[in-house]
């Protein structure tokens, strides 16, 4: 088996796979929530190493992918203003808005800058008092504490030329939305490890209980993912539905208390639109009233922008695990990383891009539902 030698501990990978093969007696569908996990799964062919009964469904955990089109359009409008220095993480540059992207705005003369951290953007505001510095604050619970700290510092330092365009999203309401969708096939979750590094695991037991679904907190390295799958399958075979932490080296039950208290001070929970999915109740954060003056949507008066997504793009169904990327008619033809129709193709963490980059390179044109024959799987042990 060509993939398994690339694991950092192939022997352990083999043992985990053998146990998964020996345990799974019935068909099970697991969703990995985090885009980093999806990336790792496809890159290492983990889905193809699993027994036929165990299917991985890709979840909505790519922050770039789920940022709604109207927020991208708001970013593009703000970034094009002459007084603005617009700061963003690099992976937002080529996410398509309605008619262009940030890369294009930069080419047209906009002052768009890539920063590694929101504190770099804050520093730019300090050094450019005559300009307005706006930071594109996207991301899940892992990223939100950084952005909370940046705006907290801005207020403390009296920097009134700094603001955030906020599009933060939260994982547990997304799990709730996936489990309550009528077409839901998900029977177990690999929860996003780094989200839980911040948030801890307290939000999950209630979800696991109510939907009778195992939730295993999982890292995103190949062995972490195999271990998460092993534990989830174990629970499913025994009819259990508990929260388990398979990533204890980075996740404590209580999360990070300092980060949690900053989040509580700076943000408040709101309903959010997810690109391709739609509105999910209580699924995001915005700046709380005390920090509203630092909200770029109000400062630049772009709250009214509303836009529609291209009809042909099925990224929403991909993000909800309803179809695989290769089942979209546009996949690899009208939609490629060079000409992306949706964010799942442009973001390196997006499921469509992962399939395009790795599956096509490895196997030629992606085949729907292709799996490694059982005989070949047996030879891995």
């Amino acid at each position, binding site marked *: 088996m060509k993939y398994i030698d690339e694991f*950092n501990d192939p022997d352990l990978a083999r043992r985990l796979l053998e146990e998964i093969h020996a345990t799974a007696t019935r068909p099970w569908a697991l969703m990995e929530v985090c885009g980093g996990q999806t990336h790792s799964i496809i890159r290492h062919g983990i889905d193809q190493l699993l027994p036929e009964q165990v299917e991985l469904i890709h979840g909505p955990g790519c922050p770039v992918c789920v940022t709604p089109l109207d927020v991208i359009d708001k970013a593009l409008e703000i970034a094009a203003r002459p007084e603005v220095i617009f700061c963003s993480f690099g*992976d937002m540059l080529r996410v398509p808005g309605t008619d262009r992207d940030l890369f294009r705005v930069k080419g047209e003369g906009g002052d768009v800058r890539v920063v590694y951290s929101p504190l770099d953007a804050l520093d730019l505001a300090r050094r450019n008092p005559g300009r307005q510095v706006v930071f594109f604050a996207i991301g899940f619970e892992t990223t939100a504490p950084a952005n909370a700290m940046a705006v907290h510092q801005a207020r403390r330092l009296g920097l009134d030329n700094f603001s955030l365009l906020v599009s933060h999203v939260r994982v547990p309401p997304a799990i709730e939305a996936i489990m309550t969708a009528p077409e839901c096939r998900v029977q177990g979750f690999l929860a996003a490890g*780094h989200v839980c590094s911040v948030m801890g695991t307290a939000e999950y037991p209630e979800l696991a209980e109510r939907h009778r679904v195992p939730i295993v907190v999982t890292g995103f390295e190949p062995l972490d993912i195999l271990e998460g799958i092993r534990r989830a399958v174990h629970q499913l075979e025994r009819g259990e539905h508990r929260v388990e932490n398979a990533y204890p*080296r980075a996740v404590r039950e209580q999360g990070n208390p300092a*980060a949690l208290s900053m989040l509580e001070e700076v943000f408040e929970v709101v309903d959010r639109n997810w690109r391709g999915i739609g509105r999910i109740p209580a699924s995001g954060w915005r700046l709380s009233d005390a920090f509203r003056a630092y909200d770029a949507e109000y400062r630049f008066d772009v709250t009214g922008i509303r836009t529609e997504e291209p009809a042909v793009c099925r990224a929403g169904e991909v993000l909800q695990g309803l179809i695989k990327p290769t089942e979209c008619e546009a996949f690899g033809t009208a939609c490629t990383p060079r000409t992306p129709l949706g964010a799942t193709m442009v973001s390196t963490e997006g499921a469509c891009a992962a399939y395009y980059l790795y599956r096509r390179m490895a196997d030629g044109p992606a085949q729907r539902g292709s799996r490694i024959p059982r005989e070949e799987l047996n030879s891995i042990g």
Partner: protein
Amino acid sequence: MCLAVPGKVVSIDHRADPMTGLIDFGGVRKQACLEYLPDVRVGEYVIVHVGFALQRLDEESARASLELFEQLGLLEEEFGDAWEQAARQENGSEAR
């Protein structure tokens, strides 16, 4: 961007506001905010996301992760030049 990279705390500037430290990511050194791990010490390993240390990590798993990230080119993705990457995509080298 979603990546959280393990690194070793090389030095801490307690007077910086917010408190920062120099972190070594397998050779690449960068400043990170340490406010969310206020009692972290020099020599400890932490996982860092967008310039913020979020949790401690034991040395063995930090080293294993870093080695893997380097093999997979993920460190380049995280710390490399985003403009160059965007331009490369724009110019059509679809598969890196």
